[in-house]
């Protein structure tokens, strides 16, 4: 009877202590690395908040509503930059949403051979890979001179509106909005495309079966079914647009005083940070940190809202 003994010899082999140590140590170290995410996030909040504390104490909430930016007399208000951030990103979104969703429909429906559709999709994705600073360079030397006549025409015909009341002279809010459109288009297109592709084929077939046209099906069936994911993508794009720095900094003109006109130079929180942080000292650093804190809270709120919208609007089909 050697069988059971033999089996025992195998089953009773315990793991060596060293192996257990490695196994456990590896597990602990992955936990530690996962905790780094939380640590970095909290450290970012803490650093920016502590840096901003002095300015929060000095300027309080008036910081949000005044537009003085005066390093000589140490009076700071971020209204111009906050207004610029919100206006540039919202107007860019207004232009990019129809363009992005239209493109996504164009490359998910069978309007073109599938090879051509994939090519367009790939090109939009490559557009997302081009660094923002290169787009900024292009905007300064190519786009802005090219669109200036069109902006001048806007000023000449609609100049009585406060939004077009200044003569376009190079950098300004309008070119910044256009370059933002270029930057957020790929996000909206990519997410809308995925969302449209995930709409069950039965819904489409059902719609065609009862005799609707292509666009009848798109507007009444397909878009409503995909709306939650598309809205989520649009919100993500809004967050991206608000935080976008380089291209906007290079083309917006970085004006310190407030101007309602879209053709005049403006400012955003991120471009203000990019321009002034390196040379600031004293309470100006703190004021910039305060502005950075506002930017963080804005993007944070938008991203949370995006997640909530996706959960809230998702249709059950």
């Amino acid at each position: 009877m050697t069988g059971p003994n033999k089996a025992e010899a195998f089953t009773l082999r315990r793991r060596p202590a060293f192996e257990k140590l490695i196994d456990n140590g590896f597990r602990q170290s992955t936990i530690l690395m996962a905790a780094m995410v939380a640590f970095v996030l909290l450290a970012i909040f803490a650093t920016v908040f502590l840096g901003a504390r002095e300015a929060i104490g000095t300027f309080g909430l008036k910081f949000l509503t005044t537009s003085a930016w005066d390093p000589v007399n140490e009076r700071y208000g971020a209204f111009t930059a906050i207004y610029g951030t919100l206006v540039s990103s919202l107007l860019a979104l207004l232009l990019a949403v129809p363009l992005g969703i239209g493109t996504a429909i164009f490359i998910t429906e069978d309007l073109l051979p599938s090879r051509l559709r994939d090519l367009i999709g790939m090109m939009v994705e490559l557009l997302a890979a081009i660094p923002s600073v290169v787009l900024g360079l292009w905007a300064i030397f190519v786009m802005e001179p090219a669109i200036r006549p069109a902006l001048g025409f806007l000023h000449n015909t609609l100049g009585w509106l406060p939004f077009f009341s200044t003569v376009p002279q190079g950098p300004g809010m309008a070119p910044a909005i256009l370059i933002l459109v270029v930057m957020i288009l790929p996000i909206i297109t990519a997410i809308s495309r995925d969302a449209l592709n995930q709409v069950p084929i039965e819904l489409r077939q059902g719609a065609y079966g009862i005799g609707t046209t292509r666009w009848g099906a798109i507007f009444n069936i397909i878009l409503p079914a995909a709306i939650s994911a598309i809205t989520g993508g649009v919100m993500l794009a809004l967050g991206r647009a608000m935080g976008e720095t380089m291209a906007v900094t290079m083309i917006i003109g970085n004006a310190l005083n407030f101007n309602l006109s879209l053709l005049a130079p403006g400012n955003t929180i991120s471009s203000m940070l990019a321009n002034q942080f390196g040379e600031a000292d004293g309470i100006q650093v703190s004021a910039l940190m305060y502005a950075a804190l506002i930017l963080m809270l804005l993007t944070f709120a938008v991203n949370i809202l995006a997640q909530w919208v996706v959960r809230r609007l998702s249709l059950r089909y």
Partner: protein
Amino acid sequence: MAIPLANAAPESVSGFKRGTLFFKPNLPRNRFNVLFNSIAGVFATTAVLPLFLVLAYVLFKGGSLLRPDLFTQLPPAPGLSGGGIGNAILGTLLVTLLASLIAIPVGVGGGIYLAEYSRKGWFAQFVRFGNDVLAGVPSIISGVFVYGAIVATRIFFNQSYSALAGGIALAVLMLPTVIKTTDEGLRLVSNDLRLGAYGVGASRFVTITRITLPAALTPIATGMVLAIARAAGETAPLIFTALFSPFWPEGVFNPIATMSVLIFNFAIMPYDAQNQLAWAASFVLVIMILLANLLARRLAARTKT
């Protein structure tokens, strides 16, 4: 009852007489259809147009400036012409390497935790949520954070601006992407592989390092390549962390030139020579990033088959 053949159409369909059913292009619904087809086409063209324009300008304007000096010389002083971007190319490589050395091990570790160890507890949920929030943090904020935590406190041997600070700022941006791609890549690995490994007596550590990680290598590598390419083009976190330097790199504890900051600095200078160098640097940077993206596509295509 005889079943009518497919081509033997009935006398009438839904009350319409045979021969009266045909496509009427002038019906409002069909006009609407054509209208929206063309609108979608115009929109798609408009969306692709900037890519063509940007690429054309960068390739022609930057490509025409390509000469050997570009890679071996330092940028000229303002007002002078000639020179190159050798230090910035080296600097971009160095800073991106530093960022990858920090973000990839930490990110892969975090991803392994999320995919292989985490349960539905509060910690894993918090990490996932935090990762999404971190992915949404604007890139300039990462620069502000590193400025406040590292540059202003002079934590590294009393040095303020440094290549390492820039690398850390980029690593903060890369981290969420690396974690997410590792997590998703590992989740794609069939559970049978894990159970099989446990069945032959492998420990968790051995299962992960020998079985699941190699199985998920391609999707993870794709994500890494994309994250590195994105980091190489980032500018905002570097302007006040790595700063800029007109000299060759002097180690990781000193300010360093990078291509992206060079483009930013030289684009807004009123000198033609500097503007030209900005275009040349854009060319080099865009070629690098596009190659990385094509590599990632090749990797991703390998995963699907």
